[in-house]
């Protein structure tokens, strides 16, 4: 999936300007990092791509389509093409690992046999195949994050977004998680990872976008 931001701004009703004049172009199959201090607008940028929020100026093109033309009813279908990983996992603790990962397939009406096959494939990819019947609560922080990744990729998205996916993890686990993203990128998925772990980002040797107070201050160089 190809993403293009053209002078995108987001101003909240309170008057606070979260993003202003942000422009960048993420090519099909590219992997990039988004860095910046907390409050710089990383999460807002992710939310705009997910259509959780809408920009107040500029335009966002996804595969050449301006997101502004999508109606409210079209949002779920847009989200099915995008996988998201959150820092706080957003896992549901009232169901097993399997059912957490199966959720995106269930909501898009995939039949149960197909769902089971794809959930196992996704869990296999993140190395949790043996733990599908566990409650996520019983697993470690790193494993929980990998459940979140399995859920994000189970629908075979064309774009993978991750918002501080390694926030609570130690360096070794963080590196493992980053390598997972690298693997998805290797098979052609466009990946954008928001992270403030500059050392880790630098080691990955990918394009780095840096936000400072809502403005894009660096695009391209390594951090």
């Amino acid at each position, binding site marked *: 999936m190809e993403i293009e931001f053209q002078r995108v701004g987001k101003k909240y009703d309170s008057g606070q300007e979260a993003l202003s004049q942000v422009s960048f172009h993420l090519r099909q199959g590219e992997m990039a990092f988004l860095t910046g201090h907390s409050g710089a607008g990383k999460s807002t940028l992710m*939310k705009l791509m*997910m259509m*959780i929020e809408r920009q107040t100026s500029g335009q966002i093109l996804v595969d050449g389509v301006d997101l502004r033309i999508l109606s409210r*009813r079209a949002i*779920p*279908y*847009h*989200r*099915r093409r995008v996988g*998201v990983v959150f820092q706080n996992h*957003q*896992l*549901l603790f*009232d169901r097993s690992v399997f059912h957490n990962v199966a*959720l*995106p397939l269930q*909501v*898009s*009406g995939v*039949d149960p046999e197909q769902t089971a096959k794809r959930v196992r494939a996704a869990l296999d990819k993140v190395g949790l195949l043996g733990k599908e019947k566990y409650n996520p609560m019983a697993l470690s922080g790193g494993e929980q994050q990998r459940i979140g990744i399995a*859920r994000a990729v189970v*629908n075979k998205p064309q774009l993978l977004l991750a918002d501080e996916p390694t926030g609570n993890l130690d360096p070794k686990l963080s590196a493992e998680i980053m390598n997972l993203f690298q693997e998805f990128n290797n098979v052609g998925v466009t990946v954008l990872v928001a992270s403030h772990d500059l050392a880790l980002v630098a080691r990955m040797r990918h394009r780095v976008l840096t936000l400072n107070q809502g403005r894009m201050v660096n695009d391209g160089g390594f951090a």
Partner: protein
Amino acid sequence: MPQKNSRRGATRQSVKATKHRWSKRSSFSLKLYLRQHQSTLTESFMRLLNYPLASVMTVMVIAIALTLPGSLYVLLKNVQSITSNWDKQSAITLYLFPQVDDTQALALSHRLSARPDVASVDYISKEEGLRDFERWSGYTQLLSSLQGNPLPIVLKVIPKMVVSEQTLPVLETLRKQLAAQGEVQNAVLDAQWLERLANILSFGQRLAYALSILLIVAVLLIVGNTIRMAVESRRDEVLVMKLVGATDSYIRRPFLYMGLWFGILGGFFASLCILILSWWVSAPAERLIELYGSHFKLQTFNADEIVLCLTISAFVGISGAWIAVNRHIANIEL
């Protein structure tokens, strides 16, 4: 020129590819869709069982709220059936002027009994009237002290038509015609009780409608509130479902089914309450009516009415859920 052509060809190809991808993604299976609905239906019922006390209380509040208008309806239905069976002979009593004498009165009586809409005419002379009055008033001494007989001659006209709500206007016209006779001072149709009863019935009906509307609104609010709490308790789940691309209708569905269950169960217990109530009052009610000399069998909720009650409550349940869900899932955002 060739360049243009090849470009157009490429566009066509990409359109084709998009179409293909789209049809693949949206391949709609009715069987799968129905299976999803069925599993949501059972899941939402199981969820009610997860919170048995809260669910039972909600269902019982709905049942009680529906029992009230329901039993009022049964009461009205019975009163109506009693009165519609009361096709009784009525009379129009003509009080003649005091100066009208027996010959004139008899002539009038013959004239009236010849009318096609009159069955018979009872002639009650002044003396007869006084005797009757003495008998049921007991004022014998008082009456004997009177100078003359103050009572007028009375003709009791029995119309051919029996009195009922439908024939009342016809009888009223007859009464007016009779009152217009020169000898008649006053004509009274003794079916006014029927008019009063009709008024009481329409009063009761309006009361029942008003109560039904109020209580149905109450049920809507009860279901709405319960569903609101259910949405709130599943906030995380709704949020995650939204993020992974669930449509609003998909998110709504389990809650609508929950409302449906509340409605159906509430309607079911309301019907049960009404059946028990009418069975409980039937014996004294039937004895009471029989004292008035008419045979009476209390009517209760029949199958059609139970189905109607369930339909209405199911509909109200879904509507209450719909309102609550729409208001609350929109508020759940990351």
